[in-house]
Every structure is written in structure tokens, then in C-alpha cells.
């Protein structure tokens, strides 16, 4: 549904996006994760035919972003970084205006507007000027605009930036509800929690380049290595007596017990447990060491810095 190959953009001497290659299938949500100025917005602007790529190509729903810009724009819903609302209009007027822009007929406009206002809980305020809305309501209305013409592709640029936690949570819930089998979504964000909550795949972008991409699990494995397990023992830890199965390494120990790195948990964990029990250890619990997306992100960054 969204395909790019070596997508690049240069502004004068500055290379804002450098060889971005992504492939997002229908029904998938990709989070483009990166700090401010990493090239997320530029990538989104190229995907919506606002900026012409200096190199490479991109196709949305089968249409080339350079050759068929109008077609691309009619198939994509874009939530821009700034909500872009006309503050003197009411929500009803605003959605009606954009409905006309997307050439929806009158009945469809009214039906879709009513549905979306209801879905985002703005119906009660629909006839008030948008200028009177809270930040969260504005963002939800902007999301409603994005969905008005039922686009198969959604590009959401920093959907919760500069929002209070409560509003951000509401908007995240709304976005989570937008997932469907045939809708493809790209979320640009620097918010790790948001990316982890909403995305199936994550692409970490740094200085215009995709450093790595994949599911959270794939990224964890590739950046932080095999999974680690903390074992809690009742009778204390005596390392000398333990016979470790293949693919298991002792990486540390705490007062409660040892920590092991396991290459293939499915095969090795039962063997590890057996060895522990055979060594006389009384196992109370065995738990995978949790790694947050933040650790994954920082690992990716430190790799870049080391390089």
C-alpha cells in the first residue's frame, strides 16, 4: 500500500531525507520514530506529493507521488503537525468544507460528518466556533477531517505532540480505533510510548536515514541481543554446581538469583530449568527482563554514535 525506494530529499546542501526504503502493507501501522529534525515530516510531505523527491520513488495505493499527485492526495488522509483548523468556523462547517473539497455529495458529507463527530465525542460542541475547543478536541476534529473521505492511507504527523497526557491518551485511543484490515497507517512520532502502543512496525529514522526497521520484537533482538531471564531462588544462588545447557550464558546475578541470556528460549528454557532444579536450586520465578522501546531506541542511537 505504501512503498518507497531510496526516497531522498535535498534542500540546497542539506540532505533532509537520505535513501528511505519502506514497505507498509494494507492493515499495517508503521511508526516512523525519530527526534525532531530527523526527516519524518519531510518524508510525509514527499508521500503526499507536497515535496518532490530529489532521488528515489514512492507509491501510495499504487500511484506514483510525482506523476499522479492529485490522485495520491485524494487517497490519503493527512494529519499535519499543526492541526490546521479554521478557528472561526464551527466543526460542522469545517467538515462540510473539506467534504466539498474531497467532492463528497451532500448526503455523504452529512452522514460522515455526523458519524465522525459522534465517534470523536464532539457532537455536543459541533456548532461552536473551533476557537473555543480544547487542544484535544481540536486534534480529534483534525483527525475527523483526515478520515472524512475514508482514505485507505493515513499519514499522522506527530498526532499528540504538545498535548497534555489526558488529551494525548484520548487521541491515542482514537487512533487505535482507526486500525482496519485495509487501511495503512504511518505515524510519525518521537514519542516512544505512542509508537509502541500503536504500531505493528517501527522504523527508526535519524538524520534522514532509516537506521533500522521491523516489529518491536525484531528490533529488540537485533539491537539488544537475545532475551535475558531473571531467576528468583528461595535458597540462594550457588553458581559452581550449575551445568548450563547450550545457548545459555550467565550474564549477571542479584541477591535474589542469577540472570541468563538465552539464544533460543523455546528450546533452552526448559533445559535451563531442569539444570537449575538438578543443581538443588529452589526456583520461585523465572521472568524475562523487560526491554522498553526506549532501550531499543537508545541502543540504535548508540550504534550510530559509535559508528
Amino acid at each position, binding site marked *: 500500500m505504501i512503498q518507497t525506494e531510496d526516497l531522498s530529499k535535498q*534542500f540546497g546542501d542539506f540532505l533532509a531525507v537520505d535513501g528511505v526504503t519502506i514497505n507498509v502493507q494494507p492493515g499495517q501501522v508503521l511508526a516512523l520514530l525519530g527526534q525532531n529534525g530527523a526527516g519524518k515530516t519531510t518524508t510525509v*510531505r514527499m508521500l*503526499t506529493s*507536497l*515535496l*518532490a523527491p530529489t532521488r528515489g520513488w514512492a507509491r501510495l495505493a499504487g500511484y506514483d507521488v510525482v506523476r499522479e499527485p*492529485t*490522485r495520491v*492526495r*485524494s487517497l*490519503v488522509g*493527512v494529519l*499535519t*503537525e*499543526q*492541526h*490546521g*483548523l*479554521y478557528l*472561526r*468556523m464551527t466543526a460542522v*462547517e469545517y467538515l462540510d*468544507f*473539506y467534504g*466539498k*473539497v*474531497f*467532492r463528497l455529495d451532500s448526503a455523504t458529507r452529512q452522514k460522515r460528518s455526523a458519524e465522525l463527530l459522534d465517534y470523536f465525542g464532539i457532537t455536543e460542541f459541533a456548532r461552536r466556533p473551533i476557537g473555543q475547543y480544547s487542544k484535544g478536541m481540536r486534534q480529534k476534529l*483534525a483527525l475527523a*477531517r483526515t478520515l472524512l473521505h475514508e482514505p485507505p492511507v493515513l499519514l499522522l504527523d506527530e498526532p499528540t505532540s504538545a498535548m497534555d497526557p489526558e488529551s494525548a491518551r484520548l487521541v491515542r485511543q482514537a487512533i487505535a480505533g482507526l486500525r482496519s484490515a485495509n487501511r495503512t497507517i504511518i505515524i510519525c512520532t518521537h514519542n516512544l510510548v505512542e509508537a509502541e502502543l500503536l504500531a505493528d512496525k517501527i522504523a527508526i529514522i535519524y538524520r534522514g536515514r532509516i537506521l533500522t526497521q521491523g516489529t518491536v520484537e525484531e528490533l529488540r533482538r537485533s539491537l539488544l541481543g537475545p532475551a535475558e531471564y531473571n531467576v528468583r531462588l528461595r535458597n540462594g544462588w550457588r553458581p559452581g554446581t550449575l551445568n548450563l545447557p547450550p545457548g545459555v550464558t550467565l550474564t549477571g546475578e542479584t541477591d535474589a538469583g542469577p540472570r541468563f541470556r538465552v539464544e533460543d528460549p523455546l528450546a533452552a528454557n526448559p533445559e535451563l530449568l531442569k539444570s537449575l532444579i538438578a543443581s538443588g536450586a529452589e526456583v520461585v520465578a523465572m521472568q524475562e527482563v523487560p526491554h522498553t522501546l526506549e532501550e531499543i531506541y537508545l541502543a540504535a542511537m548508540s550504534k550510530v554514535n559509535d559508528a
Partner: protein
Amino acid sequence: MPKRRQEALQIVWLVAWRELRDQLRDWRIIIPMFILTVILPFLANAGAQAAMNFASRYGTPLIAERLVPFLLLVVGFFPITVSLVIALEAFVGEKERGTIEPLLVSPLEDWQIYMGKLLAGTVAPLITSYLGIAVYLLGLVFQGIPLPDPNRMAQTLTLTTVQAFLMVSGAILISTQSTSVRAANLMSSFIIIPMALLIQGEAVMLFWGNDQVLWLAVAGVAVLTVLLARVGIAHFQREALLGREIDVLNLRWVGQVFWRAFKGQAKSVGQWYRLEVRAALRRQAPAIWVVTAIGLLSMAGGYALIQANLPSVSQDVMDEFSSILPVGVDVPSLDQFSFFYILGHNLRAVVVIFLLGLFSFGTLGALLFVLNTAVVGGLVSLLDVMGLSAWKVAVFGILPHGIFELPALVLSSASVLYVAIILVTPRSQRSLGEVSIEAIAECARLFVGVICPLFILAAAVETWVTPVLLSTFGG
């Protein structure tokens, strides 16, 4: 009208109507409009009444007669100045407020957004202007002051309308090329100053009572408006609108772009002549042909004009004209026509043609060229009327240096026309500044490579050869 076209135009109105509704909800626009619709016409009525009283006391009815339509022009013009404020922030204001991007990522065509904004900037101020004019005219009726004649009223209304569109076209063009509302406001002097000069000129014409020139002004302003709108649409780039953040006058970049376009691919002067100058001539060929045709037509026109009008002028008037000419006009003596005088005069003329043409999309430059060539035709005709041998003067007095001078004049006038054509031609991925610098560089290529050498040859022949030929064979 085909349905597709009609739908496309409906979208233009949709963009305009959205903005108009926004304007009508803003008290900062409504209040000045109300003042200009109601209060200003009353002040103008008071002025007209005072003028009538003054005229009746001192017996100067002409002043009052001309002041009434002048005030009509003023009452119509003031409200359309509001359009400038609205149009200047049409794009850049929306960019600053962050509302432009959702519009740009919609499936609207560039021209639909542009024309929508143009319409939105013009409609409200124009309605205010028409209402103001109506209030003023009603006031005149109640005061018992004679209304201006229908022709004058039609003229003022048309002038007001085209001026509003001109200001909005210019302001919207600025708005698409600015980085901030502040920058757009600073650049508005490029509209305000020429408009002020135009209004002053129109006021003079009104007091002079010259209808023909005023209608010409209407036509000129209309042409300029269309060209400005065309330039705006041709260079409207969503990318540039979003991408530009700060304005920096990068003289190095300007110099590099100019030099690259001037030099082309050439590695030596010879190669430059063979490849680049020839290429420039080839590209400008259509403009050269058009200008040549215009030149020939205006030459014929000048000849015909003198033939048709001069014999009817009485000898007395001619004598009188001859007697006042030396007093009023500083005619240089033949000794002053040195090589450098002629060369300087010619170069000054083409520079003026180029500069005037540059700021008027070639129209004022073309006008000067037409005047020049018409004078040549007129001169030959004058000699004919006076019973002198026109062909001898043409062959021995004009042709020897004219062979060089006239092509140079044609080339320089064609160059400015070429720049105008380039400016109104859409160029994707090129900024208006880049396109302008490149077009000027190409004209400079012809100026340095062809026009200047031709003028040098022409001045040499005119200084040292033509006088000899003329005195030997010209009779």
C-alpha cells in the same frame, strides 16, 4: 459550459467563499469596511458641496465639474485598499497559522486554490467600494449636485474593479513568495507605490478630462492584472510555500545563478559566441519576429499618421511651432552628435526599454519601441510631405547606421518580451527568483554579445559615414 469545468469553478468559489465567510466574521475587517462604505462617501459629498460653493462664488465651474468624478474615484478606491491587507496574507498568513497544509494536501489543483484566494481578496472590498460609490452618488442627488456623465461613471467603476484585481493579483503573488506576513507587508510597497503613481496619473487625466487616456489606463491595468495572475499561477509551488522559512538575500547565489546562465556550457569566448549566443538567439526568435512585425507596423503607422494629418495643418501653425521650438526644446546642434553621445543615447534608450519592460511584463518597453519606430516612419513621411526626397534620406541618412541600430533595437525589445514570456510560463521545481535571474542573464548574453557591438558599429557609422553620405548623395 462542460460539467467538469463547472465543477472545477465551483471549487474555486468554495475556496473563496470559505475565506469570505472568515473575513465577514472578523471585526477588524468589518469595521473599516463599514466606515469606508458610509462615512467616507459623506465626507466626499461634503467636499463636493464645498467645491460647488467655491465654484459658484469665484466662477470656476470647471473645477467643481471635475472634482465630482475625482471624488467618485477616491470613494471607490479607498475601500479596495482593504483588499491589499486581505490578499497579502492569503497564503503566507495561512502558512503562519498552520491552516495551509491541509488545503495543500487536498486534491485541489494549484489554479483552483490560487483563483479562490484571488476572488476572496477582491469580492468583499469591491462590494464595499460599489456601496460607497452608491452612497456618494445618492448624496450628490440629495444635494442637487449634477451627477458625472454615464461614460465617466462607467469608466470609474471599471477602473475601480480592474485596480482591485490588480492590487489583489500583486498582493497574492507577494503572499506566495513571502516567508512571513511581516515580509509580505514589507514588500507591499512594490504595490502601493506604483498604485499611488497610477492614481495620481488617473487624477490628472480626470482633471484634464481626457477620456481616451483613461480608457487606455483601464485596458493597461486589465492586461497587467491578467499577466500578474498568470505569473502567480505559473510559479505557484506547494513545496516552496511550505519550505521557505527565512528570507536571506544571498548575493553569492544570485551571482552564481546569473553567471551560470550567462556563461552556459562555453569554455572560451569563441565557444560562447558559437554556442550560447546562438542558442539565446534561437530561443528568442519568436519574440524577435513579433517585435520586428510590431516595428514594421508602427513604422507604417507613423508614416500614415503624418501623411493623413500633416497636410491639413495650416502653414501658420507650422510657423508658430517652428518659432516656439527653439525656446521650449533643447535641440542639440549637429556638432554635439559625437560617437560617444550617439552610443550613450542608444544604450540609455535600450536600458530604459528593458527596465520599464521588466516591471510591466514588457508592455511599457514595447510602447517605447513602438514610439521609436513610429518616429522613424513619421520622419520619412514628414520629408515626403515637405517635398524632400524621402528615399534619399532613408537610403543615405538612416539605412547606413540603421542596418546595425534597428536590429539592436529590435533585439533589445525582443529580450524584454522574452523575459515577460518566461515569467508567465510555468516552470516546475524552479523558484520565481531563479527563473527571473536566468531570463535576465540570457538577455544580458545578447546585450553583451550582440546588441552592444551593433550599437558601437551604428554609432561609428552614424558619426563618420552617414553625414558624408548624406551630404554627398542626400541632396
